[in-house]
């Protein structure tokens, strides 16, 4: 071990190895073995110096403890961390510490005035260590292996540049464990501001394609296909029905190979309507069908007419784990509707996105993301904000739902982003710029 330090990004105190300064002499650290996510751990510190230096060093450690407690209560901005460097000029690895406290060796009060002291810093930490952030090359219809910012649209179709997801290639993630993601999404659309943002990460050993996640109107079986240059892929489906009971409006078919790509994981279907509907008593539900047999049926949602998109409860595809000795059976994803009033009803379906929920986060805006503002989400710090580059300031503008966004090493990872405006519309021509970073994560140093 070249160096161990304690502190935060505003100041570090070296307690072991290169650049260690009196009275800190060395530290002995044997990470506690544990299979759990959170570890109760300790590090022994050996101090040697004048009594005054020892007193100053102890005060510094107590300050670290106090800052950690304050951070837990929102009174200090930085995590207190241990920082490890395995070799000179090598990568730093960090672990945030919580609930820290000091204990002294029994003879500490006698050795203090003679110039030596052994103390033990106890703490709780995540069962992993993370490096500094590393920018990820991103790929989509707007560029290959782009760093510094890649363009996103708010939908994906066959038109040049229209892509709402980015691919991260396996070779670009050097990590032993799923690695925390940091992304910076800049609103570059001058027409309208962003309210809510939905993100989801998908990972797969070989699949680098995204078309399976976007169900377009031409492939939908049911209703009438209508042309519009303003629709995704220039077409939408008009689905009409008259029954007041639950009615099958049609479906998308997933081939055996497509079903296999979904890998039995959960997805949130987000249905984009070409036109908002006008009904106040419309309910929709999704069923996964094998022919006429229902494999899975999710709860009905109320289709609020003030939204131009509808979000269904998560579905697993296929819904039940398989032996995987053969290709999974093909599946139809069908849309059912119920409108209790009599008469003819219609909805105009533009497309449906199956937003992956492997790891995902939703950002519910309580104020909007204006043009040039950047949503920053850092899954290492478990914090997010809006950065205003022109003003040079930041603020929290979203309620974040979801856990940390994690990238799976050795696999293709794809990040999907859906943005809505203050009128509850997924305005499909919205543009933004995305940068992404990850931190190398290891269990053992």
């Amino acid at each position, binding site marked *: 071990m070249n160096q161990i330090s304690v502190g935060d990004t505003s100041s570090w105190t070296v307690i072991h190895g290169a650049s260690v300064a009196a009275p800190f002499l060395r530290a002995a650290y044997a990470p506690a073995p544990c299979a759990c996510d959170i570890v109760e751990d300790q590090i022994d510190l050996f101090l040697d110096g004048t009594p005054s230096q020892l007193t100053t060093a102890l005060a510094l450690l107590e300050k670290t403890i106090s800052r950690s*407690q304050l951070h*837990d*209560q*929102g009174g200090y901005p930085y995590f207190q961390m241990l920082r490890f460097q395995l070799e000179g000029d090598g990568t730093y690895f960090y672990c945030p510490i919580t609930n820290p406290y000091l204990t002294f060796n029994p003879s500490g009060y006698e050795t203090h005035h003679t110039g030596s002291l052994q103390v033990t810093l106890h703490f709780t930490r995540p069962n992993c260590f993370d490096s500094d952030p590393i920018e990820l090359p991103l790929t989509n219809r707007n560029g290959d292996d782009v760093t510094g910012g890649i363009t996103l649209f708010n939908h994906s179709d066959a038109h040049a540049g229209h892509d709402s997801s980015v691919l991260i290639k396996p070779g670009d993630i050097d990590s032993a464990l799923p690695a925390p993601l940091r992304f910076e999404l800049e609103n570059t659309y001058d027409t309208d501001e962003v309210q809510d943002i*939905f993100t*989801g990460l998908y990972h797969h050993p070989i699949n680098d394609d995204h078309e399976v996640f976007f169900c377009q109107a031409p492939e939908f079986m049911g209703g009438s296909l209508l042309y519009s240059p303003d629709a995704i892929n220039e077409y939408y489906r008009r689905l009409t029905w008259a029954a007041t009971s639950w009615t099958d409006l049609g479906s998308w078919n997933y081939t055996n190979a497509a079903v296999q790509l979904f890998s039995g994981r*959960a997805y*949130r279907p987000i249905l984009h309507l070409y036109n908002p509907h006008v009904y106040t008593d419309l309910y929709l539900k999704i069923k996964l069908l094998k022919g006429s047999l229902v494999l899975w049926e*999710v*709860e*009905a*949602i*109320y289709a*609020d007419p003030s939204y131009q998109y*509808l*979000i*269904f*409860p*998560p579905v697993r595809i296929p819904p039940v784990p398989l032996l995987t000795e053969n290709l999974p059976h093909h599946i139809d994803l069908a849309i059912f509707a119920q409108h209790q009033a009599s008469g003819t009803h219609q909805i105009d379906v533009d497309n449906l996105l199956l937003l992956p*929920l492997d790891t*995902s*986060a*939703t950002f*519910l805006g*309580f104020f909007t993301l204006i043009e040039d503002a950047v949503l920053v989400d850092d899954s290492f710090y478990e914090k997010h904000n809006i950065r205003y580059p022109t003003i040079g300031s930041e603020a*929290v503008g*979203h*309620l*974040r*739902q*979801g*856990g940390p966004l994690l990238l799976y090493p050795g696999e293709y990872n794809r990040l999907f982003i859906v943005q809505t405006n203050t009128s509850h519309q997924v305005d499909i021509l919205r543009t933004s710029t995305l940068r992404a970073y990850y931190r190398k994560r290891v269990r053992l140093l």
Partner: protein
Amino acid sequence: MTPALFVSFLRRDFSGPFLPSVHLTPQRLSWSAFGGPDQAVIHADGQIENLLDLTSSLRYAVTIHDVQNTPVWWGFVDEVIIFLENVQVKVTLANLFNRVTVQYSFISPDNKLADQLETVPIINPQSQSEFGIKEAIIHETDLDENFASAFRDTFLSLHAWPFSELSQRSKPGEVYAQLHCSGWFKTLSWRTYKNLEGFYANYGPGPGVFAFGDANTHRYVGQSFQPGANVNLKYVYFRLRAEASPSTSLTARLHAQSSGYPGSVLATSSAVPASQVNGSKYSWIRFTLSTPIALSAETVYWITLNPGGVNPSNYFYIKTDENMSYSQLWRHGAYYNQTVGAWYPLPSETAPGTKPDLIFRFVCLSDTGSQIASIASAGDQFFEKILGLTTGIQTSPYRNNSYDCLKELEALMRVGTANKRWVLATVTPERFLKFYEQPDPDEADIYIDSKSRFFTKHQVQLPSYLPPVGRYARLAATTRVSLPWDRNRIPACFIERAEYFPDTDKLIVAKHSSS
């Protein structure tokens, strides 16, 4: 590090602080959506003499606040338990009563139920001045008046001051005290509630019937009554029978009184087809006023029945009460002789010359929000202000069950509002009692993460000791739940009650005990 909480007291009349010479540590705090601060347990350490002094803190006002002096919990000392080496001493307000009434049944010599009576209440003014009014209504059977009065007096004497209990500890232990505190909302259970207005009825017993609609001499029939408060009449019931097969429709009419009999018509009910009136038995027939009609206090009104025409073969009978049982003196029934053009008292077969009543029920309605305000006002002893609401739900305000105000309030709060939501209540640190509508579950504005921390929708973390009781919360730890889309699958969770343990900084969200 657990947050520090501090305890302060005010004397019973709120005139100044009480500074006990003991060290106080809150152990458990709870809150309810139905009343705000609910229960608190405070641990006290100190010298035995100082701990014993805590017994005089009963009904003192308690406020627990954090280091920023933000009030966290408030209420009053309800019970003090002193744990001595081998003994524990408990003094409590639980069994204190300083206004006592006995409701009893009187047995006649033939062992038949003779009467239902109630003693005059007796009070202990000194106790009331110290602690506030705590009322007991005791129900007993088979008593006479002297027995009931003596029983009442003895009960008051034994209960007018705090109750104490001495018991042995299971094993010797440390010396300390516990203060068990209750929220101010609980004091609404100290007084009973009665409202005899809004429901006027005479169930007889008869005897007597009166035919009307059979001739012009028996054109209409009616009954007078006098509300004691401003009320809103909605329903009128009479016991009727049809003779042969009348084909008319009946209506009830509300009249002002003129010269002791029905005068101008103030309102007319919806018509009831004669086919709904049974031909072989007397049954209650309801007449509905489309909108409740406001009646003024201490004003005499008449309700009359119009048979819809005269037919000597097909007409109606109405049940009368020749015993004149209706409790309002000077109010009676009458019929209209169209031939003469005048109203007359109903005839009596059994006591000619008297003025029989009809058998009737007149039901008034009021917004349950105004009833809540009335009941809370009746039970109010310590609140600085009562802030009510309009619920949009109309029910009868009549109450005669001897229930306490809290029980009556909780029942109305569960009835809810026209939006199908409960009525909630809280008490502010300034002792303002506030009733409000349960929030819309689709507008959940509180989030909880996987570490059990509550956030506002602006991502501001709430301290564990300030739980969002009375609000809807949704999970922030996952994207698997998203409103409004998932309201059928996983609706937002209503935080009905929460309990906080300061020594561990743990907050437990629970359901209200009575829900």
